[in-house]
């Protein structure tokens, strides 16, 4: 299990390959990548991601440990960025490896649902005119936790 919280971009291909190469006996590797999309309200200049440095690593470790306990996983990887990103940039990725694909897919979804609402990150959309707005948490994201 590996957790990385960083400002710098990550190499999706290299991270995925290194992760897949390191797991023996896994029949399934699932990855999910989050990408900064344009704001609904207008042209976005940047997305600024703030986090709580003392808590972020621990919160992510707790979520990933929970996934390792609940599913039969060989390994799990979470990378999450903070700082100023622009549309098209990759924000984060998760990877899961398991003997069978069902465990790998479900654990990846679980990780994503919990990262949305239980990892201390806050997103702010900065529009090209200079206006900025904090992204509000959605009820649907909180509801998504209930299925686990």
């Amino acid at each position: 299990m590996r957790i990385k919280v960083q400002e710098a971009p990550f190499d999706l291909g290299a991270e995925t390959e290194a992760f897949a190469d390191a797991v023996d006996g896994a029949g399934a590797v699932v990855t999910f990548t989050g990408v900064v999309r344009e704001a609904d309200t207008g042209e976005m200049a940047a997305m600024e991601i703030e986090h709580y440095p003392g808590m972020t690593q621990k919160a992510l470790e707790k979520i990933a440990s929970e996934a390792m306990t609940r599913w039969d996983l060989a390994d799990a990887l979470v990378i999450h960025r903070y700082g100023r990103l622009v549309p098209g940039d990759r924000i984060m990725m998760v990877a899961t490896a398991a003997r069978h694909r069902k465990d790998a897919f479900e654990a990846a979804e679980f990780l994503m649902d919990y990262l949305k609402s239980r990892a201390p990150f806050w997103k702010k959309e900065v529009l090209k005119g200079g206006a900025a707005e904090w992204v509000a948490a959605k009820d649907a994201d909180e509801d998504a936790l209930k299925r686990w």
Partner: protein
Amino acid sequence: MDILYFAWVRERIGLPRESVETSAATVADLVEELRAREPRYEAAFADLSALRVALDQELSDFDAPLDGVREIAFFPPMTGG
């Protein structure tokens, strides 16, 4: 005790962290002390349902006791992923 603020809570209060001497028994008591200080605190803490709290870097709630707590953080619901 160190108090940390994030996202729009930080912006409304105008600082990322501060140290306070308090005898507040619970998080809610501390919030009342802060609200009584200045309008910017009142504005930040006007609606507790829009806020989350962490004690020593673990998510907690407003009824929680502050006994032995060294760091408390207030922030809006998280938007990771």
